[in-house]
């Protein structure tokens, strides 16, 4: 698939936005500005963006506990997301959800999800909605390697095939589920073929390579959009940091994450590829970098100032109407 210069710049901007969002919130967490448990996506940006660049607002996605990247890639407002993480009443979810529950239905983003395996069944439902309406929409669920062992994920896969849902299952294998390696927790030879045995094509990609992900995700989404039932994308990728911000990471070799940042960075990779092939110029990418830093800085500044709750609205928004 050939990408226009504009499309390339946009993809880079999205990836960079995710990266800097995640880098910055780690600092804010250390400073005590962001409460709760937070899981960052650094290192996996090519996946969210490589998939979501094929989608529009009429398409749906659902994410996991590690949701910021998918949210940004699907078009959630970064400033509103930041305010949400800060717990502001002006946050994208009015401060009720926080990091693990960022959502924006108007963008087709059905939420991060705190339950491993919670997303795929819900995603199949959104796909069925698209199918019933016949509006050409698809729905994409993102899951980790760990979540591929959860029963709900398997059920969703089989049901999507049976009901011919325009559903794409994306599995981002970052090698770990919390402190347990994927090589231990998945008994199968390889995850992609296990999932494929459910009866849909699974396209494997190098999750550190935007172009590969973009290409394979395109094929999977095309398959689903054309009415052929579900498809899958399996990516091998690396998580730069711990499971959550603050994870001491005893289960990883010393120096592992430094190595990954040096050698497995999808952003560096993208830069090298596009500059090497003279598709983009360094100045263009530098300008984006600067622009992104400014945007993130502004969103943090706004979040610090943003109003906090006073507790009075704790009972609001449970029901549309409770009667």
């Amino acid at each position, binding site marked *: 698939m050939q990408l226009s210069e504009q499309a390339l710049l946009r993809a880079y901007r999205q990836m960079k936005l995710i990266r800097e969002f995640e880098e910055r919130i780690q600092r804010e967490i250390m400073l005590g500005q962001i409460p709760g448990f937070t899981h960052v996506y650094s290192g996996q940006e090519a996946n969210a963006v490589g998939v979501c660049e094929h989608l529009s607002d009429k398409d749906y996605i659902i994410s996991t506990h590690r949701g910021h990247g998918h949210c940004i890639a699907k078009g959630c407002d970064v400033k509103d997301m930041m305010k949400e993480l800060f717990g502001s009443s002006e946050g994208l979810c009015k401060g009720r959800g926080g990091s693990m529950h960022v959502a924006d239905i108007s963008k087709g983003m*059905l939420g991060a999800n705190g339950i491993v395996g919670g997303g795929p069944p819900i995603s199949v439902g959104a796909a069925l909605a698209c199918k019933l309406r016949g509006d050409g929409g698809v729905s994409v669920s993102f899951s980790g390697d760990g979540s591929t062992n959860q029963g709900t994920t398997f059920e969703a896969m089989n049901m999507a095939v049976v009901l011919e849902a325009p559903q794409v299952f994306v599995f981002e294998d970052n090698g770990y589920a919390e402190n347990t390696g994927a090589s231990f927790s998945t008994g199968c030879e390889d995850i992609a073929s296990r999932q494929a045995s459910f009866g849909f094509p699974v396209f494997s990609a190098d999750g550190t390579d935007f172009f590969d992900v973009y290409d394979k995700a395109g094929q999977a989404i095309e398959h689903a959009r054309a009415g052929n039932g579900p498809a899958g994308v399996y990516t091998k990728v690396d998580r730069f940091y711990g499971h959550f911000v603050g994870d001491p990471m005893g289960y990883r070799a010393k120096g592992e994450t430094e190595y990954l940042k040096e050698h497995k960075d999808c952003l560096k990779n993208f830069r090298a590829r596009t500059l090497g092939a003279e598709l983009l110029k360094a100045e263009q990418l530098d300008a984006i970098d600067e622009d992104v830093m400014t945007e993130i800085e502004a969103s943090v500044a706004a979040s610090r100032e943003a109003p906090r709750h006073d507790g009075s609205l704790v009972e609001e928004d449970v029901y549309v109407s409770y009667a």
Partner: protein
Amino acid sequence: MPVKTMRDALNEALFHEFERDPTVFAIGEDIAGGRGGTGELDCTGGVFGVTRGLLTKFGEDRVLDTPISESAIVGAASGAALAGMRPVAEIMFSSFIGVCMDQIINQMAKFRYMFGGKSKCPVVVRFVCGAGMSAAAQHSHTNYQMMTSVPGLKVVVPSNAYDAKGLLIRAIRDDDPVLFFEHVMLFQSECEVPDEAYEIPFGEAAMPREGDDATVVAFGNMVNVCAAAIDALENKGITCDLIDPRTTSPLDEETILESVEATGRLVVVDESPPRCGLTADIAAMVAQKAFTALKAPIQQVTAPHTPVPFAPELERAYLPDAGKVQAAIEATLA
């Protein structure tokens, strides 16, 4: 007015709403029946026939038989609801709710709150519930009391065909997740049911009996058991208010409190086990809000703290019956 069974009344409600609103669809196991078989399609209509005929009339796109995958069924329903549809999911027996509980209590119930009020999830999940068929411990539970404890859900427990129809129509039109519990002993129960569509509002109790001496609150099939008990007490000169809340969440506290203010005595009856259930819920609410009106201990009549047994004699001992209800009414008057 024509007399109909609860099965037929529910079936009619579905036909009305399928016709009225193209975003309504049904999903569940064997709700049509016959997919992948060698015989007829749409031969089942769910184990108790409530969805029969929908597939034939509205087609395969709107009547989705599924694999045995309850989490996927409920998840798909709520995902479709988030995405603008109005699904009606069926989980055969509420006793299977444990298999898809996360999708009910952690997902559909919480979306709106977690998402800051910016989403709605108009999904209905229908369940068969209750004991009385010797279906034993894994097919006979009520579960609605557990679900009443979950913020974000609405819980409906009809006691007769008329209410069932109006409440199901109301449930499908509701913008929040609704769990709808159909008691297994009621599918063949009959009463007058209009042919046209009508809604029964949530949070408004019915009062099938009115009296002076005590207030009896009961749920589902126990409403009928209590009505019989109350009728039998009439020739002893005892009369009671019988309150059928119809929805346990939202709950019509007002009707209960008003009645207790008048009678001063309360008996609460449910066929669930005794701990942390609806009888306790109502009793505690009254002990807090109408304490000064109370003239006697509040009586709870429930199943014992056991699973549901198989043998018919054990099951009869398990279930509250008219005798136990009468004894409780008389105890509160003693």
